């Protein structure tokens, strides 16, 4: 805690490559590092999902080179059930933690939060640097589990006990694999806690003169709310991981009940609670969903407003709704456990907040759609992805109606319906937010413009592809297709194997479309045409400084803020907008 001294915001421009680009204290570099990490992670996760889909579509297909991933898991390049589950677990874990948490929150947040509040940096740059490198180590540890004896854990990203707690006897990867998993996630938590600490303090204490809380851009608000969720959620997951590791290496029994017999061997553990893990995990797990999606909401609002050339109908309502979602997210986690043997009464206690959470979610959606009315919508890749986000968010959101009700959950729990639901509303929507943010902010981050044509192509393939993949999931779930099956041997599943083949093809194509984005990203980064200071005629502070921003963001002249963040559709000196830091009076007066 010794670094808790606000002076950190000021450090001389670093000299030398290492200080500049590797162990940099500059929030912008750290933001980019997070983005790069997310990029590597998302590609890894995508390849894993390709392999999974290939196996589900064509179970007896030998996938060339599969044996590189697992020594024992792929005899003759055929995928064994354990390997499938291991890939599935790694896909989920990597995507949820190292992509959906790092990219929209840590990456963009690090880069833009200080700029948007008008600060030179975060208050605790050392913590900030640690936060990235700790996360990076966590990623390495996670990947390392591919190289241990019998591979990574197969317990799923939820890592339910006692499967995760009894050790190798439960199956391949449940020994060292789980320990590495828990260690990695524990480390990851530390990283995110340090990050959230910085975010919260930045928002509260580093704001420029005139930047009242209500003048913060919606992105800043989103990141602030997210960091509040993150701070509490990750602070709960870390102890859970510690307990899990202890059950493995120290022989304690926090999660393992008495008298379990595996392979005819009576397990040494005694008296642990199976549900304890589920409680701890989901207390983190559900807020985590909002850690992934709320920054997306902020980004989409930010991008849409700029491209609609008008403010939202009410920014306050948007902020309030995001806050409400964050607050409610702690009372709903039990809806993941309706059929888990929890007291049936508590199912109801959890069901109602879950249903109520749809109200703020609906308000947010309506605010976006309603604000479109009478706007001057500009269509570019960024706004397309933002609109795509809304569409995805709606599609994924409505299936929440079903899962929020314990009675219907009896049928749909643990089926592909759930998989479709959270992929649309959490994964795809959040990813669309990331894409939207990337196309929108890339000029500011790198000083280069991205290629719009490629961008639009990327959007079309991704948008249609995502629907082709995840809509059928719902149908499969409705007819009872259980998730986490390495193969569909059940009689009742034979008729739908064709659907799975279709999904596989769609997944491969959509995945391939992401390579366009990758190419666009890299090509534009080096050979893209130079970006002006404010290509989108946006108003918030990040657009008032050169692209890319100088080392201390504002060249030592901290900005003074005169307006609300979104002065659009007004008669300004530069056009239909007034920058936040321009002293000229705004007609609305705020």
């Amino acid at each position, binding site marked *: 805690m010794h670094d808790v001294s606000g002076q950190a915001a000021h450090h001389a421009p670093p000299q030398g490559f290492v200080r500049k680009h590797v162990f940099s204290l500059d929030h912008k570099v750290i933001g980019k590092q997070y983005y790069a990490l997310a990029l590597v992670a998302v590609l890894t996760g995508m390849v894993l999902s390709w392999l999974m889909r290939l196996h589900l579509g064509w179970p007896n297909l030998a996938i060339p080179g599969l044996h590189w991933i697992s020594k024992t898991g792929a005899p003759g390049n055929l995928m064994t*059930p354990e390997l499938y589950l291991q890939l599935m677990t790694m896909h989920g874990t990597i995507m949820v933690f190292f992509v959906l948490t790092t990219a929209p929150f840590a990456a963009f947040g690090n880069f833009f939060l200080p700029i948007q509040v008008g600060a030179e940096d975060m208050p605790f740059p050392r913590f900030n640097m640690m936060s990235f490198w700790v996360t990076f180590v966590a990623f390495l540890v996670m990947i390392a589990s591919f190289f241990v004896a019998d591979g990574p854990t197969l317990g799923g990203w939820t890592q339910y006990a006692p499967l995760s707690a009894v050790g190798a006897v439960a199956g391949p990867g449940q020994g060292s694999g789980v320990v590495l998993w828990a260690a990695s996630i524990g480390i990851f938590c530390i990283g995110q806690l340090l990050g959230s600490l910085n975010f919260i303090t930045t928002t509260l204490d580093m704001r420029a003169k005139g930047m009242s809380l209500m003048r913060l851009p919606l992105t800043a608000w989103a990141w602030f709310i997210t960091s509040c969720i993150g701070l509490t959620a990750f602070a709960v997951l870390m102890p859970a991981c510690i307990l899990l590791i202890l059950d493995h290496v120290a022989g304690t029994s926090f999660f393992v009940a008495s008298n379990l017999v595996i392979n005819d061997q009576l397990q040494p553990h005694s008296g642990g609670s199976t549900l304890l893990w589920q409680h701890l995990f989901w207390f983190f797990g559900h807020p985590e969903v909002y850690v992934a999606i709320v920054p997306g909401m902020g980004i989409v609002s930010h991008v849409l407003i700029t491209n609609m050339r008008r403010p939202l109908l009410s920014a306050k309502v948007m902020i309030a709704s995001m806050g409400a979602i964050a607050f409610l997210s702690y009372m709903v986690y039990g809806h993941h456990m309706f059929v888990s043997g929890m007291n049936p009464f508590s199912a109801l206690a959890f069901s109602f907040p879950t*249903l109520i959470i749809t109200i703020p979610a609906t308000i947010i959606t309506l605010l976006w759609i309603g604000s479109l009315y009478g706007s001057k919508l500009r269509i570019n890749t960024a706004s397309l992805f933002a609109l795509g986000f809304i569409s995805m968010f709606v599609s994924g959101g409505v299936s929440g*109606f*079903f899962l929020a009700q314990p009675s219907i959950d009896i049928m749909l729990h643990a089926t592909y319906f759930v998989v479709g639901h959270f992929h649309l509303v959490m994964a795809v929507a959040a990813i669309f937010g990331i894409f939207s943010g990337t196309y929108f902010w890339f000029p500011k981050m790198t000083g280069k413009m991205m290629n719009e044509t490629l961008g639009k192509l990327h959007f079309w393939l991704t948008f249609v592809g995502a*629907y082709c993949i995840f809509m059928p999931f719902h149908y499969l779930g409705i007819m009872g297709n259980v998730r986490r099956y390495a193969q569909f041997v059940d009689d009742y599943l034979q008729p739908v194997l064709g659907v799975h083949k279709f999904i596989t093809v769609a997944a491969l194509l959509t995945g391939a479309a992401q390579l366009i984005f990758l190419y666009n990203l890299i090509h534009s980064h080096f050979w893209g045409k130079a970006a002006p200071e404010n290509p989108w005629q946006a108003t918030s502070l990040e657009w008032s400084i050169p692209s890319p921003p100088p080392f201390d963001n504002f060249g030592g002249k901290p900005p003074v803020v005169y307006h609300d963040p979104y002065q659009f559709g007004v008669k300004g000196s530069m056009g239909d907008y007034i920058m936040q830091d321009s002293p000229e009076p705004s007609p609305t007066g705020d």
Partner: protein
Amino acid sequence: MAKFFAVTIILIAIGSAIPIVRGTWTQPVDISTHGYEIDHQYHETMWEAGVAFLAAQIILAVFIWKFSNRREDAEIRRLPGGATGLVLAAVLLVGTEVLALGVFGMNAWAKVYFAPPGPGAMPIQAQAGQFAFYFRYPGPDGTFGPLHPDKINEANENFFGLDPVSDPDSKDDIVTAEMAIPVNQEIHLLMHAKDLGHSFYVRELRVQQDFVPGLDVSVHFTATKVGKYEIVCTQLCGLGHYNMKTYLEVMSQEDFDSWLKQQAALQ
């Protein structure tokens, strides 16, 4: 571009709705007495969710179509009612809708979970282990013998860890690999997890319940249609999870009695 996008959204929205409306993929016919509640609730929800889904997507598309790429001098118009209107709409429409769903859903849930099994319910013990279900019928004496985890030995097919020698109650217990039940007879299923978390899922029965290690939970249901149905595990339990299944045979009382005799002979 924008108009094309609007059309795409509408096409996707309608396209997604078609299989639901035509019932291309739908849950199998319900064979339980409580299932009606769930199905009813499900269809109610499908209606409301479906309408919300289509409405949102289509309005979004229409607005994109109408308000994109307008002339520079076009003036910004404000949605009648503004934010307050939207909030009211959300709170009133959606709020009442979800609350209604919640209340009725609670009703359905209560019918399944809060009503205790009737006195005539027939007890069957289900044991889940990696990666198979086994079932135990109490036999003529109607009582289950105690379980001895240390005596479990799959090599000798002692899946439950019974000790017929010293436990009289265990002598006539009947252990089977598939589950047979008489039709129209309430079953009280006592669920015991041998090693890890598993789950008992019969789609046609509208029953899904986890096995919780160290905690014996129970469900009760009545099957109303003779036939053979699949019992599958829905709680990830290891590499064989996908193949952890067995069959539920719903038989006439006579068939069931003879089946049970036959099984008893095999013990």
